[in-house]
């Protein structure tokens, strides 16, 4: 049977073109020598150089990074705790309500989340800046983390924790020494998810950012409103590169780990 029929090839091409053509154009134009975005005037890395000299962009990038690291870490701690309680506490009155409320922000329009946070910060008199963005991002990333972690906890063999208790652990040390190391991959991927969500968030950040702190997405968005500049193209290309490298590394690591696991299991089967 031929696997590459004309139909298959066409649908594959269409799909990929649809997904990647915009990005390819963006990358190509980032190397454009011309100041006019739509006119090709030869290859150049000029805009990358100018980007590095643009203090406003660099500041925004730094703020974004700080916010992403802080909020994803906080969200991971809170989300893991929430997931643990919801999965482990079994049935209690209002459990369904609780778990529903944890996941509700997933489907809540971001505009509403952003607006409500803005009202809260104004209400308690908190000046908008890096701190408010961190808090806002923690709030909405937390539920993503708890979804990822609780799906791992559901399949976690409860007797492992009981064994730890049986061998002399307090509930807290059992969590630290047994549960946490075993669910670590889920916690890490929850952190990564929170991190990327925070990196590219525009809506909530624009509600909660103040004049003192601007994140990169806000900066790009406002710069583009004044006209797309090749500098923005260069910046976006860098971001695509970073994300690509990150994703490829992560998948390579997990693939290698699963291969090693398979090898071990086969070796154990032979050893029987």
């Amino acid at each position: 049977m031929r696997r590459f029929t004309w139909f298959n090839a066409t649908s594959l091409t269409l799909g990929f073109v649809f997904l990647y053509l915009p990005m390819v154009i963006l990358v190509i134009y980032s190397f454009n020598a011309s100041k006019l975005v739509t006119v090709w005037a030869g290859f150049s890395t000029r805009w990358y150089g100018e980007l590095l000299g643009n203090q406003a962009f660099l500041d925004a990038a730094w703020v974004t990074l700080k916010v992403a690291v802080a909020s994803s870490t906080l969200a991971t701690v809170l989300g893991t705790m929430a997931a643990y309680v919801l999965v482990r506490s079994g049935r209690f009155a209002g459990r369904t309500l609780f778990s529903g409320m944890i996941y509700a922000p997933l489907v809540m329009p971001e505009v509403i989340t952003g607006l409500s946070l803005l009202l809260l910060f104004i209400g308690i008199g908190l000046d908008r800046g890096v701190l408010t963005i961190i808090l806002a991002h923690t709030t909405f990333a937390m539920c993503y983390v708890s979804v990822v972690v609780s799906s791992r906890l559901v399949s976690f063999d409860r007797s492992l924790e009981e064994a730890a208790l049986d061998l002399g652990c307090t509930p807290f040390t059992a969590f630290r020494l047994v549960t946490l190391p075993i669910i670590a991959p889920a916690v890490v991927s929850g952190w990564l998810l929170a991190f990327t969500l925070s990196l590219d968030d525009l809506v909530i950040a624009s509600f909660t950012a103040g004049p003192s702190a601007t994140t990169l997405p806000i900066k790009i968005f406002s710069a583009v409103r004044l006209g797309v500049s090749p500098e923005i193209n260069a910046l976006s290309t860098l971001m695509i590169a970073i994300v690509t490298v990150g994703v490829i590394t992560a998948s390579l690591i997990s693939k290698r780990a699963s291969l090693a696991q398979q090898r071990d299991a086969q070796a154990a089967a032979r050893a029987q």
Partner: protein
Amino acid sequence: MAQTVFAPWDNPDEKPLIQFKNVTKRFGDFTAIDNLTQDIYTREFFALLGPSGCGKTTMMRMLAGFENPSEGQILIAGQDMAGVPPNKRPVNMMFQSYALFPHLSVWDNIAFGLRREGAEKTQLAARVEQMLKLTRLERFARRKPHQISGGQRQRVALARSLAKAPKLLLLDEPLGALDKKLRQDTQFELMDIQEKTGTTFVIVTHDQEEAMTVASRVAVMDEGRIMQVATPAVIYEQPNSVYVADFIGDVNIIEGAATPHPQADGYSVAWAEGQPQFHAKTNRSFAPGQKCFLALRPEKVAISAEPPEEAANRIQGKIIDIAYLGNISTYHVRLPNGTMMKAQTANTRRLSRRSLTWEDAVWLSWTDTAAAVLEG
């Protein structure tokens, strides 16, 4: 030198290690353990045997401290265990799933409990090595649990639960995941280790052969109650109820009405219209005409082509089915009134030289002490 029989339960001066005092455990409306009182003694290998849902696992989990009794008291070495968390009990458990920590090596798994005690480094290492040696795992100390076989994992779980030298070791279906051959080897290994370490073992199992093999006493459970506690031999030969007789091994149960026998100290049991009565001796007493059950093990029923002489009980029937198991064969024989009865013989001769086959008319016979006479 005569060996003394290990039977602390017969000695009134012996202090029990574990005492269940009127323990009841309810989960919502469901009563898992129903007003249960039972003593277990030091160095015993005590088996809790029963079908799933009979409460045997709940009993074990209450000993470990994962469940608390709704009513009653559990004492370990005289100390009331109410409110004592699992990590403070002199009890360790070997889990059905083994529950080995996948992120730790075999060595670290075994050392886990000792580390929580804050054992000193060289002592800890010595103890772990000793456990590895006991369970013949020295070669695998550096491996992770997923890098060893099922049988080895089972031994790691055992070593880990024994490392802290608990007063009491609980084993929850410890051999359930092993294939039959390995299971039998491991049963003897378990008994050997129990003897070497002198630890009291309580094992939960639904496999009656396993319970009979390893245990000093077996408790047969049903619906949250212990039906009978006795040595394997007594449980098998002198069950106290139809439930126990039926649960342990293969048995023919014949319902009838007992009448005291005029000559011997036994009873005649009328079991079917127009059939000769069966004779059985028992130390239970029955009123004339009282309903009773004969529990007769198939291997105690002899099968022959010619009518046997001088048998207390004999009856003719026809072979309907033969189950050939290699070492033994079970014959399913239909009696004249349609009742099916099982008889078992050891296959001491080669297959070709045996004479009985399907549709043969045969005689079944047994002595008057072969059957247990039960009230219900």
